[in-house]
């Protein structure tokens, strides 16, 4: 496993819980640089929980998360902030700041972390919006956009600081198939252009086979990973019926 020597993300023996309820236990995996890595699994198996614990929105009960070799879970608040700067995150709902325009939404991270003049920040914001196909929408408020446009604007914001790692929480949920495929294309484009490491949480089988380099599948009962590898190999080689069923979409009534 020589290519795993310098993983971009390394999760070791992570356990996550809400109050008393243990959701994930003993989760370990590695994400290689510039890889599109999918975390898949049925609803409620803990995908969002894993993501939130990885980026510090929740505190794991046990285990370690390392980014580019540096521990995130045991970092102090200063170096944590430094590392957060190198992440982008696209939330399930987009999570744009509703009181700011799209332009201001994208400008905010730039204002926080750079000392660029206001004029330049505005140009960058317009450029980032254009990259996701939203040119000319700088002055619009999030409430004036459709769900797909909000997700794309959220992506533009996540990419504002040219992060090395971007997290996506169910990017294609609640989007129509065409918009979802366009978003997939954008994700691949970002990776190919900037060499960004990408972690996607999803249960969209088309996306998984379309763009994922590797996947891990979480399971609700096992509270951990039940399959790992390239999507096609996992679908072919797994002897776990749940994995196969998920990846071949054979749920109720599709024998």
């Amino acid at each position, binding site marked *: 496993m020589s290519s795993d020597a310098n993983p971009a993300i390394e999760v070791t023996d992570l356990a996550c819980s809400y109050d008393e309820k243990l959701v994930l236990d003993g989760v370990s995996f590695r994400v290689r640089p510039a890889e599109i890595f999918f975390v898949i699994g049925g609803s409620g198996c803990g995908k969002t929980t894993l993501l939130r614990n990885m980026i510090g929105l929740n505190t794991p009960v046990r285990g370690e998360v390392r980014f580019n070799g540096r521990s995130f879970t045991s970092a102090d608040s200063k170096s944590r902030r430094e590392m*957060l700067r190198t992440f982008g995150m696209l939330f399930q709902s987009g999570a744009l700041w509703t009181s700011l325009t799209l332009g201001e939404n994208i400008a*905010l991270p730039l204002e*926080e972390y750079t000392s660029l003049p206001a004029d330049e920040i505005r140009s960058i914001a317009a450029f980032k919006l254009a990259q996701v196909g939203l040119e000319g929408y700088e002055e619009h408020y999030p409430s004036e956009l459709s769900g797909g446009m909000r997700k794309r604007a959220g992506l533009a914001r996540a990419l504002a600081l040219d992060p090395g790692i971007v997290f996506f929480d169910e990017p294609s949920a609640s989007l129509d198939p065409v918009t979802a495929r366009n978003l997939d294309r954008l994700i691949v484009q970002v990776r190919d252009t900037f060499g960004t490491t990408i972690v996607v949480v999803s249960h969209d089988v088309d996306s998984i086979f379309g763009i994922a380099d590797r996947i891990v599948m979480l399971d609700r009962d096992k509270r951990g990973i039940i399959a790992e590898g390239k999507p096609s190999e996992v679908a072919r080689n797994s002897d776990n019926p749940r994995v196969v069923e998920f990846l071949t979409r054979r749920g109720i009534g599709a024998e």
Partner: protein
Amino acid sequence: MQATPEPTGASVTARTDGSVLEIRLGGPWRLESRTPRWPSFTLPEKPTAVRIRADAVSQWDTSLVVYLGEAQQWCGTSGIDCDIQALPDKMRALSGQFLSSLRTRGRDEHSRSFVVEVGLATRETMAHVRGLLQFVGEFWIDTTRLVRGRAGLRWSDTVGEMQKCGAMALPIVSLISFLVGVTLAYSGAIVLKRFGGEIWVSDLIGVAMTREMGALMAAVTLSGRTGAAYAVEIGSMKANEEIDALSTLGISPVRFLVIPRVFALVLMMPLLAMYANCLGVLGGMAVAYTTLDIPPTAYWVEMLTIVDLQDVLVGVIKAVVFGLIVGLSGCLRGLQSERDAAGVGNAATSAVVTSILLIIVADAVFAVLFHVIGL
């Protein structure tokens, strides 16, 4: 033992065939019409088996499934064989699902023992106290960073909030404090008239407004108007993952959202309190002139013999603290809100309750404190 089926509704006919109870269902079974509940007839001497037929059923929905399920459950618990082979497949399948859903139905977890309730309540209270301390601590750290010039204040946000909580609250503060002045004048006059000292109404109102009512009325108004709005704004931002989006960028929600809002309130509350003082005095003056025949000039001159800058200062100090209380409670409740619509509503309610409670407590503390230091 043959009952005639009702032509309009669902019917159940029970017949004993030796020791076998045969139940024939008929008619339309609809949830919205009254359908029979099991057993719906007097059960005969314990039968050895029950056979259910539904040949005469014209229409059916969940109501029939429930009836079948209950019949089967009754048979199961009394150890009687239940023969449903004559039923159509779909009915059998659905009643089977209904039976298994009865078995796995979630147990009622709301009835807990006293000890468990006390334990849970204690833990919740501790979590609340911890949340409060953490919030106040973060606010303190971010404020000191701001004061030392290590971090910038978002001025555009602050000014916007100042306009919303200050300038736009003028009409309601005007009305309330004018009326408070009027009310104080009437009640004061009742007592003072006995001593022929109506003129002292001006002193009464002057002192009451500047030391107490001006700040108090402004604070109570803003806790309902602005504190609740803060809780709702921040609570819905939380529900929409907007707060998480700030945190993942390493931006402290306290610095970004709380400080501008609290700052705006701390700056505007004293101004509003002083404005409320003026309106209250004006209200008293109006009553004095119209009902007590005291000319405004006399009223004013008399008031100035008692009220001085110190009284105004007392009001202003209180107003600053009340502003802090209203702002912090609103923001805290917003940040603590559950991530749904009901949670945001509760956040608004508890923001108002918290701030009014704390305002009254602080006012009492101030009363004692100013008495002791003789202010």
